[in-house]
């Protein structure tokens, strides 16, 4: 229940990071209508916009919108108010990661785990190593035997040997630069 008025801390934070004014959204729902992943989300894109407008911070940060989003940019492209919806979604993800807020909905709970391992993998190795990725993911998501039957296939294709490490400094730099409003 909203009792004590509505402030705009989350909206201001997003505006500071992206220069996007979420109050331009008039809740037409076109973003959600065009989003092919909205069926996965507990909070479809237009509703996330609404939560931000109402400054319902916890609900917004613990939504799974940004874990279901496939970054196809349809929402931003079709928004009649010319709001870059995807960028807002990504920024909320950044904030959720920074503040270590967990999804309240269990259905996509593995996605953030995957995201973290994937990003660390890239930062550490320059490119993705399928074996490390898979092993880590299975450990952290407590699905120890998931996809284990694929191991021989990967082995045959020589996907399991760790590749030569390149300079990871540049990669780190790029990732640092993307932090804050790109969902990292």
């Amino acid at each position, binding site marked *: 229940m909203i009792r004590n008025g509505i402030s705009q801390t989350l909206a201001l934070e997003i505006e500071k990071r992206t220069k996007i004014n979420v109050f331009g959204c008039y809740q037409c729902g076109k*973003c*959600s209508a065009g989003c092919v992943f909205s069926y996965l989300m507990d909070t*479809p894109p237009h509703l996330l916009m609404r939560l931000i407008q109402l400054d319902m911070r916890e609900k917004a940060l613990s939504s799974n919108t940004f874990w279901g989003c496939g970054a196809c940019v349809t929402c931003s492209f079709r928004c*009649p108010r010319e709001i870059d919806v995807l960028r807002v979604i990504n920024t909320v993800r950044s904030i959720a990661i920074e503040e270590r807020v967990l999804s309240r909905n269990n259905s996509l709970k593995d996605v953030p785990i995957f995201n973290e391992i994937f990003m660390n993998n890239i930062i550490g190795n320059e490119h993705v190593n399928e074996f490390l990725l898979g092993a880590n993911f299975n450990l952290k998501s407590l699905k120890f035997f998931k996809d284990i039957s694929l191991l021989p296939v990967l082995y045959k294709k020589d996907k399991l040997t760790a590749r030569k490490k390149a300079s990871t400094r540049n990669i780190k730099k790029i990732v640092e630069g993307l932090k804050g409003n790109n969902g990292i």
Partner: protein
Amino acid sequence: MRIGVFICHCGTNISGVVDVVKLAESISHYPGVVISKENKYMCSDPGQNLIKSAVKEYNLDRIVVASCTPKLHENTFRACLEDLGLNPYMLEIANIREQCSWVHSDNPELATKKAEDLIKMAIARVRFAKELTCSKVTIERRALVIGGGVAGIQSALDIANAGYHVTLVERTPSIGGRMAQLDKTFPTLDCSACILTPKMVEANRHHLIKILTYSEVEEVSGFVGSFEVTIRMKSRSVEMKKCTGCGMCQSKCPVKVDSEFDEGLSKRRAIYMPFPQAVPNIPVIDRANCRYFLEKKCGVCKKVCPSDAIDYDQEDTILKEKFGSITIATGFDLFDHSAYGEYGYGKLKNVITSIQYERLVNSSGPTGGHIIRPSDGKEAKKVAFISCVGSRDNKMGKPYCSKVCCMYTAKHALLLKEHVPDAEAYIFYIDIRAAGKNYEEFVYRVQENYRVKYIRGRVSKIFEEGDNLIVRGFDTLSGESIEMEFDLVVLAVGVIPRKDSDSFARMLNISLDANHFVGELHPKLAPVEKNTPGIFLSGSCQYPRDIPESVAMAGAAAVKSLSLFAKEFLTSEPMISEVNTSICTGCLNCKNICPYRAINEEEIKDLDGKIRIVAKVNETICRGCGTCVASCPSQCINLKGVSNEQILAAIEAL
């Protein structure tokens, strides 16, 4: 020279910041000032009486009022001087409210100092004030109405019924406009043609209304009271006096092209009347498509015409006439939805526009009132109506609401249910805007009685699957995604300005608003007037308007013409520019720069008998903008009432 200065408190608007009592005291010692007083409200009767008694008592010959902007009360104080037998232009206003107290409320001391400066400057100007007189201009008591939709027709009727001549110029072959295309009208559902055609006929028969169809205004010059207008009557290739409207020609003409009136849903001939009740009931030959004009062949219409009315050699007629007022009633165009890639770029066969739907449901329309889909002629059983297409969309450069589509969409869904009772109607909307009289009740009826499904969410995609259409939407109220199959999709395309509005505005020398509609002089207090005196607005050329509003505006615009015609004469503004011919070198910079084309050249004889060219100001056209003054290299053109010497004196007084 005996100057009186009167300083206004404006309640506390001025005196709350500026120390007016101290100011009155210090100003009274200023050279030339005989008396200086302050009052709570100078514009009130006591305030004006203060001026009157001071003028009499001290024998003042000119005054300064320090108050609000001259826009508000300059005329009040001029009238006050006129009552006293003084020339009304022996007045200067020092604006110490908008330009001082309101903007400097944080620093009363400096504000008082600035107010004193402003008053000193006004005193300096009033020293050089000259008596000015207005000249009288006669009024041509005839009205021009451009555009023959319901608004133009109504304006013409209202003016003519008051006893004045009206010329109604319509671009297409018939008057009637959009309303002639509509089926039933919200919220009362009366048949559009049934209520419009009597008006069309009345206008046609009115002895004071001259209707020029297939005609366009080409040039406008002059000013309120006497606009000089050039009208081109395009050749119809049919002699209006001979033609009886029998229609033989159009039944025999071999050429078929898309009918504009039926929005491409039917064919018309090269010689055609746009619709059966057209006024005048006389066809035109569309020369761009006629085989006689394209290939010098055919000539069938001429052969079959029983009245020998066809005239292939007829030429355009150019009319030059004078009018006292001009009413613009050019209406609107509709948004072209091919701009929406997600709705199929205008290429999906069974996606039609709202105006096409009006023709489909019309029992005298191309399908006889059967709501069938273009692809296969099957009756539509499941129809999606999509609102705000090309409205409220910044991406399309159309941020405004088209105002009429929420209502006509409700009407369209209702008409579907009336025509095909077992059909399903879905309306995809963002908000329902139903603020007119009985409008909300109408929408309720559509929802409750006709069970039309309203889905709150903008559609994101329409695509074909076979002949059917899949609409991808979202119900934002329930949070459900929607992907549904429809037989037919109707887009409520937005109301947009006439596509030629820019060139039209240039021709009339008027401004357009930010969305390129013919904007009004003042959004609240002058909604049917333009910034050019004598030009008025009627109907949806100003902004999207439904029929009741268009008709109301039409009456309002007519009253503006009538109150102009009721005057004996117009007085011209005396604060206009004047040329000192003794020093004018005839460079004519001023002539080229004047935005109103008020300056011409003139030959004069010098004292030694030599002839030379100088600039001459047309007093009735000049608006006193002062552009010419700034452009004159020899400083010989001057604005009366704001002369160069007055401005210099004001600067020196600082």
